[in-house]
């Protein structure tokens, strides 16, 4: 199991490296150079940048130095916000993003899987149709549409929940963002679970288990659940990525001070340093999450472990 995880990690590193390299050179290739943006930079920043990227050196040297700093956890300076480095800004936003994103991730998994199993157990009856509507809503209502609609209904019309803001982390403030962020994934995961369970329940070993007189609960719980979850687990990695991108919209609409909003602001203000740093940070986060998912996958299927 440990070697399996290590092997996965080893194959991930080259891809991460390629992505980072691509980002670095894209930035260098920016028309007119990265530092000649629409607005002139203050001299202090310009010097800072020159020092950080060693602009007087050759491209290869700059690249190697950048990689070196990256390994030490230095993502470089922000071009706009002079008081903080990229890492410092990320650390300010991280708790908000992690709270909302993590809750949404857990909600997606738990609600998605339970809804999928319930949908299977009550298939083609009322609970299943209800699930169908939720799934459809999640699939055709993108989060940027879902958010204003929820704000309108629950915030303005019913006045149950605040329309936005962090509110010191009060639970009522994060309900809407979390639900908006999670709903599309609840939909996808439950759909995946339901379809996968139908397939698994048709397999021969389930027939064997039934012929042995095991109860329905024990068949689903012990024999069907793990194989049902394999496709769900392989969706979790990408889902984490989608949640991150979703948080860009959700944090903006609900006015949460997370990384996503910093990122959007930085991108709109063409703060290259911040944008590049955030993208790389996100990639590392996602890669780590995927590693966890891979290990989970191996736990689910003994055949993967032995290869």
């Amino acid at each position, binding site marked *: 199991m440990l070697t399996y995880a290590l092997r996965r990690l080893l194959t991930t590193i080259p891809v991460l490296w390629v992505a980072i390299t691509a980002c670095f050179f894209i930035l260098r290739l920016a028309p007119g150079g990265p530092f000649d943006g629409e607005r002139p930079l203050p001299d202090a920043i310009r010097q800072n940048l020159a020092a950080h990227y060693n602009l007087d050196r050759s491209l290869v040297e700059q690249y190697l130095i950048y990689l070196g700093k990256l390994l030490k956890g230095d993502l470089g300076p922000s071009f706009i916000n002079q008081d903080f480095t990229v890492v410092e800004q990320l650390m300010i936003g991280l708790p908000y993003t992690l709270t909302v994103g993590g809750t949404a991730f857990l909600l997606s998994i738990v609600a998605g899987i339970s809804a999928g199993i319930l949908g299977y157990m009550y298939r*083609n009856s009322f609970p*299943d149709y209800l699930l169908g509507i939720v799934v459809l809503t999640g699939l*055709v209502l993108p989060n*940027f549409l879902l958010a*204003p609609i929820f*704000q309108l209904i629950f915030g303005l019309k019913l006045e149950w929940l605040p329309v936005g803001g962090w509110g010191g982390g009060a639970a009522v403030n994060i309900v809407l963002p979390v639900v908006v962020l999670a709903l599309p994934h609840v939909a996808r995961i439950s759909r995946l679970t339901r379809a996968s369970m139908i397939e698994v329940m048709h397999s021969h070993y389930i027939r064997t288990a039934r012929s042995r007189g095991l109860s329905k609960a024990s068949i689903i719980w012990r024999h069907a659940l793990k194989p049902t979850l394999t496709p769900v687990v392989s969706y979790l990695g990408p889902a984490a990525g989608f949640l991150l991108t979703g948080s860009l919209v959700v944090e903006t609409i609900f006015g949460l001070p997370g990384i996503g909003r910093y990122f959007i602001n930085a991108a709109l203000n063409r703060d290259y340093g911040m944008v*590049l740093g955030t993208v790389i940070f996100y990639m590392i986060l996602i890669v780590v999450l*995927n590693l966890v998912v891979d290990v989970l996958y191996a736990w689910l299927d003994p055949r993967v472990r032995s290869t």
Partner: protein
Amino acid sequence: MIFRSSRLAAVEASLAGGSPPLPGRSQLQDALARLVRNKGAMVSLAMLCLLIVLAIAGPWFIPHNYEDPDWSAFRSPPSLADGHWFGTDQNGRDLLARTLFGTRVSLLVALIATLVSVVIGVTYGAFAGYVGGRADQAMMRFVDVMYALPSILFVILLMVIFGRNVFLLFAAIGALEWLTMARIVRGQTLSIKQREFIEAARAAGLGTGAIVFRHIVPNLLGPVVIYATLTIPEVVVVESFLSYLGFGIQEPLTSLGTLIAEGTNVLEVLPWLLWFPAAFLILLLLSLLFIGDGLRDAFDPRERG
């Protein structure tokens, strides 16, 4: 089984008396017949066609232009009387014209980006599947990791650095949406390659090129069509998402995502600015979703509950 054998019985009965060639029906034709029987998919197809026709031809029949303001009607709510069926925005521009034009742009982006993704995905997947071995493993591991990375961030990065450019947007979205296609084509190629009819073709003296074009490509057609259909709504969402955030289509051009972003800002005062573009987007996504599902069920008719 039984229905298959009853068909065979018909075949054998016709054998007894004379033998004019019977028309055969390929699996593709079977699948299309199943699709036609699928009411949901057919209604969706009609809806999609209607949306396409409206988006292409509609603007010519409307007395208003998507960018020129009507100085007599600012912020006017939808009404049949004054000719602004969907109302106007803060600048007095006709929302119907803007929505149709936005639909047109969204569809265009979807079409081109999907084409880009199909070309890349099919080439990559078919190559990995056909070559196999270590090259295949490396290529698919790359896809796995790429799949996990938040690809929209790259598009935003590109848009930030190279400026907002519609054609760059087409290419960038397409270049990031090919992953699923590559996976599916690769899996299909692998399984076709292992089937005995490929070996039979080799035994019949066919060269690699002939095998690929005569035996592999025709059998890839079904899955490619299905997943291309499923890619379109994804691209529509990605485009709207980017436009919504301000990294996609920019003024004076417009798209459904841009319109929705504008509508969201004035939701409390001019709600129709959100509802009409949103309804168009939802209808578009809904019909594409049903067509995609219908196609998948038609090509792979297993019980799904």
